[in-house]
């Protein structure tokens, strides 16, 4: 159990301790550290090695605070609050100590921030701006260490930039339980590293990049692609599996390009972490990976004609056999709207099929976060169908049951994250043999040219709505502006279609 969880549990059962920090009164549970208490009232104490999701190491000596009655400064991360304590985080003495601590951290640190990928979100840079000495007095030559080491599929390591905070070592020991990192040699030759020939290969390795306060661990997937100050984040939910971790998606507004995902702290679901599979969830959102314009029998159709086309297809199918194929990757709201509007337009309920990955192991769980159900909203789809009183048949790869229903019109809500389905080409091929198919999805496959209508869909980061995770807990999606400015969501399209019918 992490410290924060400890504190959270403590909050429920134990008495509060009252103290003042920078003159402000604050009450926190017994056992809270000064650094956590200060955070509560917005006093930010500079720190490298302390991390709320890991054990306390107390090695960077940056988080110095002045405590009344104490002859010496104390480290805020490893000092517990006591009743009546008076803490000053901005005391001249504390600032002086932080200044010198930073100076020592920089003795052997390369001073080439312009070529470092961490610049802009580097704690060493940030704190130096805040409490540094500015005019360095260091004459000693720097100790040089290995750089740009290939230490894992996701990771590049620059041991020279490392400030030896040991966060990564503790992460490997306590969270991923792989214990692959150590600090070798000693003194100013100390070096973060692995046993020669070994690598960091597990599904949580990208978290090392997040917790490393400097540019020592960088992500192979992200480094040198974009300066971080060009990125804006959208807080939302990862669509990678049925866990539904809280994440931020980082995109460059001007380029309309997404670059990465990072976890958001969420004690109920993912704590401080997310998995490496989830980190890929930006790729399918970018323009080059998805279909941009609707097609009618293979020829592009303008977006403002799409509602018409949809209404036409649906009204033609009145009193005929209609099949609806759903995948568990849409939002609760989309399912409800699509089911109700199709029923309203047709006057009858269509035959519903659930299209799931050909091979999957949905009950699998890795014990940390990642679940074998690589669909974000399996539970939401189940609930939407049962609320609409619909029994649906599951199809995987083989669409025989759908064929046997012999539908005159088949509406497919294809997967957004096709990776979860392995290869969907075979299924698309078989669908194209049906008489009349309207396909919603992101796929770039040419097979969609054979469908009556193919409509690109929004991706998760462009939608507002909810998923239900494996535990039926609602997980919120928050929309960012879409990559294709004209794109219509399912909600817009079906709402417009309904209106058209009612007129």
């Amino acid at each position, binding site marked *: 159990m992490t410290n924060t969880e400890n504190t959270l549990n403590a909050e429920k059962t134990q008495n509060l301790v009252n103290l003042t920090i920078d003159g402000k009164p604050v009450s926190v549970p017994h056992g809270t550290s000064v650094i956590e208490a200060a955070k509560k009232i917005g006093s930010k104490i500079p720190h490298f090695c302390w991390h709320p999701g890991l054990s306390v190491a107390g090695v960077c000596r940056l988080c110095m605070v002045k405590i009344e009655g104490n002859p010496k400064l104390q480290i805020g991360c490893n000092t517990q609050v006591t009743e009546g304590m008076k803490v000053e985080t901005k005391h001249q003495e504390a600032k002086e100590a932080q200044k010198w601590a930073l100076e020592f951290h920089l003795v052997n640190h390369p001073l080439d921030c312009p070529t470092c990928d961490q610049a802009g979100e580097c704690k060493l840079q940030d704190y130096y701006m805040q409490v540094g000495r500015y005019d360095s007095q260091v004459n000693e030559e720097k100790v040089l260490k290995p750089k740009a080491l290939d230490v894992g599929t996701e990771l590049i390591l620059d041991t020279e930039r490392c400030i030896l905070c040991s966060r990564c070592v503790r992460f490997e020991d306590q969270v991923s339980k792989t*214990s692959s990192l150590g600090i070798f*040699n*000693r003194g100013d030759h100390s070096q973060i590293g692995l046993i020669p020939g070994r690598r960091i290969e597990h599904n949580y390795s990208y978290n090392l990049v997040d917790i490393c306060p400097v540019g020592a661990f960088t992500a192979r997937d992200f480094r040198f692609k974009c300066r971080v100050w060009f990125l804006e984040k959208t807080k939302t939910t990862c669509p990678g599996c049925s866990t539904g971790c809280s994440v931020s998606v980082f995109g460059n507004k001007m380029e309309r390009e997404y670059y990465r995902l990072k976890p958001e702290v969420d004690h109920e679901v993912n704590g401080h972490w997310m998995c490496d599979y989830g980190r890929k969830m930006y790729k399918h959102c970018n323009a080059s990976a998805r279909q941009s314009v609707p097609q009618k029998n293979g020829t592009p159709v303008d977006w403002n004609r799409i509602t018409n086309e949809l209404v036409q297809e649906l009204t033609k199918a009145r009193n005929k056999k209609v099949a609806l194929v759903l995948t568990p990757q849409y939002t609760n709201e989309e399912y409800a709207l699509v089911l109700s509007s199709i029923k309203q337009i047709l006057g009858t309920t269509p035959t519903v099929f659930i299209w799931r990955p050909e091979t999957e192991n949905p009950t699998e769980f890795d014990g940390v976060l990642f679940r074998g159900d690589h669909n974000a909203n399996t539970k939401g789809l189940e609930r939407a169908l049962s609320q609409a009183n619909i029994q649906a048949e599951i199809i995987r790869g083989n669409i025989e049951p759908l064929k046997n229903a012999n539908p005159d019109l088949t509406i497919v809500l294809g997967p957004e994250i096709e990776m979860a389905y392995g290869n969907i080409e075979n299924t698309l091929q078989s669908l194209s043999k049906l008489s009349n198919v309207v396909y919603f999805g992101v796929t770039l496959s040419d097979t969609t040219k054979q469908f009556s209508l193919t409509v690109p869909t929004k991706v998760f980061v462009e939608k507002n709505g909810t998923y239900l995770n494996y535990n039926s807990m609602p997980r919120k999606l928050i929309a960012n502006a879409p990559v294709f400015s004209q794109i219509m969501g399912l909600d817009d399209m079906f709402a417009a279609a309904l209106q058209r019918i009612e007129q």
Partner: protein
Amino acid sequence: MGYFSKELTKIIEGYIGRFETKRSSILPILHAIQDEKDWIRDEDVLALESEFNLPAVDVREVLTFYTMYRTSPVKPYRIEICNSISCWLRGADKTIETLENHMARWKQKTGNEPPFEVHAVACLGMCGHAPVAFVNKDRHLNVTPELALKLVEQYTSKNLAKVESKQETQNVEGGH
């Protein structure tokens, strides 16, 4: 058959059971390995992990922290000269310098590595006879530069017991 010799295995097992945490046994275990094998190889570290469940990273952390563990092949004669305060005052640095120059000349003249190595070490507890030196496990007192050169001559002309000649690749850095 285990990786280590029967005797060494027994020693290692003894240390592992002796302390509250397994990690605490790393220091004496490494000494035991060094005593038997002269220097500690990457393979030894890996074997401690696979056979005794001591995490290789932990072992390597300890191994590289202390400079008295040897992580590269040793030469037949290891000359350790004390350069702590008493020996230093009585000219230990001169002795060390003389030997280092002698090594360089040896290399130049013969084109071969000399069969000895020179290390400055901390107080050997015989300050009354400073400067003090060890050649392998033999103690020598009042080691002036002249005596040092004589010692080298005496030792290197001896017929050596067969020493390990295999040059093994190693990538552990030996600290400083």
